[in-house]
Each structure stands twice: as structure tokens, then as C-alpha cells.
């Protein structure tokens, strides 16, 4: 490691207070995480409201490009929910759409590169497991609630595959149960780790650029390589941000499908 320079890739995930302080165990602190959650919320609200302005326009007027964007997004999630759950899926569209859009916006806005001034530095709210974990717990609560509401104790037949000999059922029941109970954990872990790992990677290679320039000589070549790599990783991060939001939404829809139509 270069003299004096120390790579600290974890610093970007520290939740810092903006107003108030954590002293004395005070839980009511306005942090950079809260600020960026509000910014993401504001961006989503602006985007959706901007597309809904001309909803009641006369027939020849289909609205502008913005409305087409919003309608395309809703139609995309609606198609996915319809294909996964079936005609009953409309009831669960609000949560699937909310989680998809929130994860998409939070992931993409966390990737924004401007970090000129302390509080203006983007904080990726989805890089904290508390956030994605709570979202996956909501999905899991919907699955459990719908399952027990619709099927009662018959819901437990989800863990017993049909058409299997009773010895097979006895063996498969604990396996199915464990794989069901792991779901909320794995559902929340996936978007969290994807954002976390990507940001660490960008941070480390960004440090290589500076250290190579400081070293001079052959270090300049390393800097150029690291710069190209950072640019490439950033493009990949945009793709991963969209894929993780999509995967969260489609897995939520599939889990709800399990609860709605047992097998």
C-alpha cells in the first residue's frame, strides 16, 4: 500500500447525523440516510405526478412522453404480476410496484457520482440491511397474511408436495419449511449485498487512481487502467441496480403466488 494513503471503503456506508446527535442514545436524529430517503421519495413523487397530469385529457390527446414513461413502467410491473399470480394479482400490484420503484430509484440515485461536498454526497439507502430487510419482512408478512387468511391451517400443505409417498412427505416437510423460512432473509440480502459490494469495488479502484498518480512513473499507467475499470464498473452498477429491483419484485410476486394458489 502506498505510503500514508489508507483505503477505507467502509466509510461511505457510515450513517452520519445531519441535525441532532446520537449522544445519550437519542433515537430521533435526522441522518444522511433519512435525507436521501426523502430525496428518493421526492424524485418518485415528481416522476409519478408528472406523468399523471393529463390523465383525464380528451381521447385524441394521449399525453406526452412523460406519461408514456410512467404508463410503461406500471404496465411492465402489471404484466409481470399478472403472469406470476394470475387474474387475482391485481390486488397485490400496489406493494410489488412500490417495492420495484423504490428499489430502482434508491439504487440508481445511490450510484450518482457527485460527491463534492459532505452532505451532498449520495448515500445509498439500500446499502443498509435495515432497509432491504424491512422491505423483505413486509413481503413475507403479506405472504403469511394472505396464506392464512385465504386457506387457514390448510396453508401448511404448501410444505407437502402433492403426489409423493408418505415417507417422501415426512422427509420433504422440514426441507420445504426451512427453504420457506430462509426466504425473507435471502430476499433482503440480495439487493443489500449487490449495492454494498459494488460501492466497495468503485471506492477501492477510485483509490487506485489517486495512489497511482501520486506514485508517478509506471503508476500513471495503473491509474489509467483503474479509471477505465471504474467507468466500466459504474455502467455495470446501473445494470445491477435495475436487475436487483426487478428480481426483488418478481420474487415477491412469486412468493405471493405460492400463498394465493397453493401449488
Amino acid at each position: 500500500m502506498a505510503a500514508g494513503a489508507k483505503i477505507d471503503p467502509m466509510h461511505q456506508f457510515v450513517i452520519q447525523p445531519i441535525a441532532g446527535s446520537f449522544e445519550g442514545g437519542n433515537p430521533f436524529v435526522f441522518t444522511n440516510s433519512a435525507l436521501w430517503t426523502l430525496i428518493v421519495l421526492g424524485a418518485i413523487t415528481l416522476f409519478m405526478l408528472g406523468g399523471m397530469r393529463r390523465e383525464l385529457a380528451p381521447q385524441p390527446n394521449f399525453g406526452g412522453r412523460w406519461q408514456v414513461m410512467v404508463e410503461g413502467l406500471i404496465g411492465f410491473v402489471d404484466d409481470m404480476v399478472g403472469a406470476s399470480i394470475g387474474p387475482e394479482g391485481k390486488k397485490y400490484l400496489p406493494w410489488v410496484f412500490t417495492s420495484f420503484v423504490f428499489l430502482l430509484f434508491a439504487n440508481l440515485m445511490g450510484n450518482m457520482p457527485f460527491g463534492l461536498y459532505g452532505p451532498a454526497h449520495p448515500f445509498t439507502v439500500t446499502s443498509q440491511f435495515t432497509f432491504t430487510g424491512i422491505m423483505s419482512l413486509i413481503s413475507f408478512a403479506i405472504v403469511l397474511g394472505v396464506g392464512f387468511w385465504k386457506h387457514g391451517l390448510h396453508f401448511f400443505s404448501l410444505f407437502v408436495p402433492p403426489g409423493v409417498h408418505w415417507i417422501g412427505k415426512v422427509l420433504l416437510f422440514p426441507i420445504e419449511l426451512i427453504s420457506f423460512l430462509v426466504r425473507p432473509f435471502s430476499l433482503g440480502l440480495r439487493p443489500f449485498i449487490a449495492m454494498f459490494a459494488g460501492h466497495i469495488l468503485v471506492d477501492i479502484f477510485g483509490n487506485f487512481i489517486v495512489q497511482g498518480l501520486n506514485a508517478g512513473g509506471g503508476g500513471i499507467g495503473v491509474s489509467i487502467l483503474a479509471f477505465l475499470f471504474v467507468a466500466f464498473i459504474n455502467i455495470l452498477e446501473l445494470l445491477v441496480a435495475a436487475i436487483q429491483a426487478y428480481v426483488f419484485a418478481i420474487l415477491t410476486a412469486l412468493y405471493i403466488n405460492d400463498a394465493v394458489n397453493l401449488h
Partner: protein
Amino acid sequence: MDLASAKVIGAGLAAIGVGAASIGVGYVFGSFLQSSLRNPAAADSQQGRLFIGFAAAELLGLMAFAVAMIILYAI
């Protein structure tokens, strides 16, 4: 061997799992491409399943990453 060096070696060993998961992700997308070139008409309807397979393969690599992070920072 002291704890600090054992930690670093353990985290490095855990990183092997990420490489193994990359084989899985490559296999998922590779087989999808192969079969969608044979029957392009059916490819679009299977995109959801493609991403489910991708998510399952990727999760195991992320688990390895989580283990490495736990070894490095939480022990």
C-alpha cells in the same frame, strides 16, 4: 498464527465462493442464450424464469461475500 492473519486468509478463502457463483451465473445466461437461439419465439416468455435462476445462482455467491465480510469485520 495470530488472529489478524488468520482472518485475512479466511476472507480470501471465502472469496473463492464468489468465483464459483460466477460459473453458475454464466451457466444460467449461457444456457438461456443457447436455447433462445434455437427457438427465438419462446425466448421472451421465459425471461422471468431466467431472472429467477440468475437470482438463485447469484445469492450463493453473495452469501460467500457476506461470510467474507463477517470474518473481516464482525469477528
